[in-house]
């Protein structure tokens, strides 16, 4: 396993290094699907240039990354390519280890359940076997490292790669059960782009399960753990925010980074839903819809937590997907992170309803993005509606994909309790519906 992982890493690094050296690197770095106004490498360089000119990078509206990123690249700007490749490798290895550990736990739980004879007799074909699960961690690493979206994002030096690495480390430390590190990495991810805030809930659920604390709001131990985790999380957030303040000597970065993410002033086209909607919005409804769209991202946390409180890792996957679909400046790098989790749920494939259609739509959209962009921006033979239509389709496909996995997960859980071949009262074969 370790050997194949090493091989995979070598292949992935070679592909990236080759692309860095090729003439493709520059056009890729300009693609609006790959870089957003926050993550664009060009803007990071601009921030560094402004710092060299003695101007605060946040005095203008070009640089929107966090102060830590600018200080990181202040020292690493000459090794940027290595840094981004390293970030990808770290993310992949972290996911590999996390999924390996997670699979072990899944298997252990399944064994206990089988020993306790909790599964209905006809559910044996839903039971996962170790041989089937053996290659899942490697597949996850492969899905992340060899995903064209990740490769493009890395070649464009989008700082999204760093965020993904931080999130992957958060997943790893959570699954390993390290409360402090989990809180610290989650705080780093939140600091980079507010949205991972919602991952707080799955992390706490998982860690409570790990420590055998019952998830019951009436118990003091539950609240004690919540307070503990939030203290670590908010404490490290406080430290990091103050550290940024002392690095720059001003609070300018708060409106420039978080205000920019929340108020969406930059309408540069991207794969998300915000840009065209707010370019075409009537001025007096702007604030209302801005609030609606931003609340939408955070809104699903609590209902999802209630529904999936026994499956925090799947909840994490759902949250990552929701964030990457509904965030204000999404890039394909964000999509790549949650797509990497798909092999973990490979046992759900028999319950997926429209995976073929969705994959076709996703592939077609990925191909059509550059085509319609060219027609609009360079050839002038199409207009913005063409590109917008593709972003709509891409997002519908992503939503269908996620809700399909959610459906399949719930259905499998239902079958594990009530049996796979359900019968009606009269003994004929029953169909399962949502009611």
């Amino acid at each position, binding site marked *: 396993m370790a050997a194949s992982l090493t091989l995979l890493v070598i292949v992935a690094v070679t592909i990236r290094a080759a692309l860095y050296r090729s003439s493709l690197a520059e056009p890729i770095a300009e693609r609006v699907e790959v870089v957003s106004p926050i993550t664009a490498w060009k803007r990071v360089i*601009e921030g560094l240039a402004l710092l060299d000119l003695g101007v605060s990078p946040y005095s203008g509206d*070009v640089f929107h990354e966090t102060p830590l990123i600018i200080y990181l690249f202040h020292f690493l700007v000459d090794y940027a390519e290595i840094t981004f490749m390293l970030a990808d490798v770290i993310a992949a290895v972290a996911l590999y280890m996390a999924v390996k550990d997670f699979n072990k736990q899944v298997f252990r739980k399944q064994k206990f359940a089988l020993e306790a004879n909790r599964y209905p007799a006809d559910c044996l074909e839903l039971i996962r076997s170790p041989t089937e699960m053996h290659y899942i961690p490697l597949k996850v690493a492969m899905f992340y490292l060899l995903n064209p979206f990740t490769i493009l994002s890395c070649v464009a030096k989008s700082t999204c790669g760093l965020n993904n690495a931080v999130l992957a480390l958060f997943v790893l430390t959570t699954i390993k059960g390290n409360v402090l590190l989990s809180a610290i990495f989650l705080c780093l991810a939140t600091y980079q782009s507010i949205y991972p805030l919602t991952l707080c809930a799955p992390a706490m659920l998982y860690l409570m399960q790990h420590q055998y604390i019952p998830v019951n709001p009436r118990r003091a131990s539950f609240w004690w753990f919540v307070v503990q985790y939030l203290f670590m999380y908010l404490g490290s957030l406080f430290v990091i925010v103050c550290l940024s303040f002392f690095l720059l000597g001003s609070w300018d970065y708060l409106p420039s980074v978080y205000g920019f993410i929340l108020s969406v002033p930059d309408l540069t086209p991207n794969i998300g839903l915000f840009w065209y*909607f707010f*370019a075409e919005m009537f001025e007096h409804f702007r604030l209302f*819809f801005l609030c609606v769209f931003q609340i939408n991202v955070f809104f699903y946390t609590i209902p999802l937590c209630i529904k999936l409180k026994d499956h925090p890792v799947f909840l994490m996957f759902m949250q990552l997907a929701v964030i990457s679909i509904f965030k204000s400046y999404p890039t394909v790098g964000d999509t790549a992170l949650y797509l990497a989790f798909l092999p973990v749920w490979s046992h759900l494939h028999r319950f997926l309803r429209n995976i073929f259609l969705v994959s076709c739509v996703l592939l077609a959209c990925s191909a059509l993005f550059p085509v319609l962009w060219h027609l609009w921006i360079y050839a002038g033979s199409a207009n913005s509606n063409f590109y917008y239509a593709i972003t*709509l389709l891409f997002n519908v496909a992503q939503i269908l994909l996620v809700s399909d996995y959610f459906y399949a997960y719930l259905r499998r859980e239902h079958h594990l309790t009530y049996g796979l071949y359900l019968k009606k009262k009269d003994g004929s074969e029953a169909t399962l519906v949502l009611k």
Partner: protein
Amino acid sequence: MAAHRCSRCSWLLLVFIFSFYVSAKSEEATQANDEHASVVDNPQTAAETGKQPSEERLWEATQVNEAVPIDAAAHKQDFPVPGSVLTPTPQLKDDFKEELVIRPLQSGDIYASFQFRTVWETDFTTGSKVSHYRLFPKSLGQVISKFSVRELHISFTQGYWRTMQWGQPYLPSPPGAELWVWFQDTVTDVDATWKELTNVLSGIFCASLNFIDSTNTVQPSASFKPLGIANGTDHRFLRYATLPREIVCTENLTPWKKLLPCGSKAGLAVLLKSEKLFHSSFHSQAVHIRPVCQDWQCKSTSLELRQTLNVVFDLHTSGQGKQEWSLFKMFSRTLTEACPLASSSKIYIDVTDNPQEEQFELSPATPLLSQAVVLGDRRTFSVYDLTQQVTFGTVRSLNVLIRWKSTQGDMLRPLLHAERYVAGYGLQTGEIHTLMYNNHPFRSFPVLLLDSVPWYLRLYVHTLTVTSKGKDNKPSYIHYQPSKDRIRPHLLEMLVQLPPHSVTEVTVQFERALLKWTEYTPDPNHGFYVGSSVINALVPSTVAMHTNITQEQPLFSNFFPCKEESSYFMRVYTEPLLVNLPTPDFSMPYNVICLTCTVVAVGYGSLYNLLTRSFQIEEPNPGLAKRIANVIRKMRGVPPL
């Protein structure tokens, strides 16, 4: 690093102080030269030379007269009584001069430059209210005192000045409208005052100056230093804005003419007929207000209002092939009198290239000649003094006429000129190229380049390159203020040394932003204008360039190059740019709102569905007949089917 930057700044400051010193000096020198020349070159007009001392004496007498009331006023103002300003103030004196310079250009066009100068011996800076106006226009005077303006420069220009064909203009101005104002340091909220001032000026000049807001206003740190006397040059009190899209026409000319003491009734202003002025290749009108010294000691200041109007007539197309022009042909008027309120009223015709009348013939001939160093070049002018009745001759009207004999002759190429364009294709990115030409054969000189770019072209300053002669030319000073979306534009100022006989290219990349649909102009596919870059320079003088000028001057006078004439201040404006931006579809806001909301609803709906419902076995609905039968069976008390 800081020390280094400090030294740069101080050096820059030095350069500019020097530049104003030089320009002031050269002005003085010019005036002195002027008088000197008219005295020396025209010994035959003995009568006129005879008058000179008497005028001098007269001037001195008024000085003495004036000194007493000022003293008295000073005593009175020991304690500020508000009533004291209402006392009649006979010492307030104003003086009006008008002049027209006509320069035949090498391209065959004619350049006419009007200047009307009103000097008012009053002091606005003390903040005292003035309610009595004579020659100075009241509308402007009130604006200046209300908004505590120290200096005000406003210009409206239609067309672009072609430096390579026409040489340097006397007063440069960018296409469209330009406004720059120095406020007094007593102003607390400069931005609010500026906003109000632009709105008021917009009304006075019938122009769209009310479109000046924070998105096109900048505060240059080194360019646009005060032209009048100023004790502080803190650029917080400076505001500069251009409207490159502004179209100048009759409605701007009429209010401009109304500011003149004689209106358009008498004097040179009768020539300003809009149907002719706007039938030209270039038209520029400006108002400059600045405080100037009253005397050599500069104990008291007066307010100078200069109204200028420059126009270039294309005589090839309107002259039906004949190469001649006259005042009547240009302006469809002749001159019959000077403005009675003017203390001086003169027409200058540049005859430098025509010393022996081999190029053109001037009639009526005038015996008066004058020499002046203009823009670093020694020029000779024929002068018509309109205050003398002799000038109008027997027909009581003056119609200056030039008839060309030959068209050849070479113009001295301007030592500095610049051009600008946008490179790149597509609507995503682009690159602004600014080319600056130093045509001086052996001297390099520094220029200060100012670029103000609207926020929707996002400049990337790390892509800034300055190259001359194929080599990297690092600017010794860069002041960059990045833009804020919808709040302020980019401001880039830098000091570049132009090597002799070279082209310096400044490039910077930008990204085009997609705007909200309401932020586009009504014709979005026409493109967006970017104002001209401004290049300020201390250009080595052409006079100093001629090393063999010795035949005209005594040998002892010119071994070392004379410092005052060695360089002069010059401002060059480049072309404005027209840049296309990507546009959304303006016709479908409803569709976009509906479709996007639908997609969000699909996401919300499918998650809501899965979150709130649970899996159940589907019980097929019994048929209608069976249901009715069951109802009946229930009534009968029999178990249902």
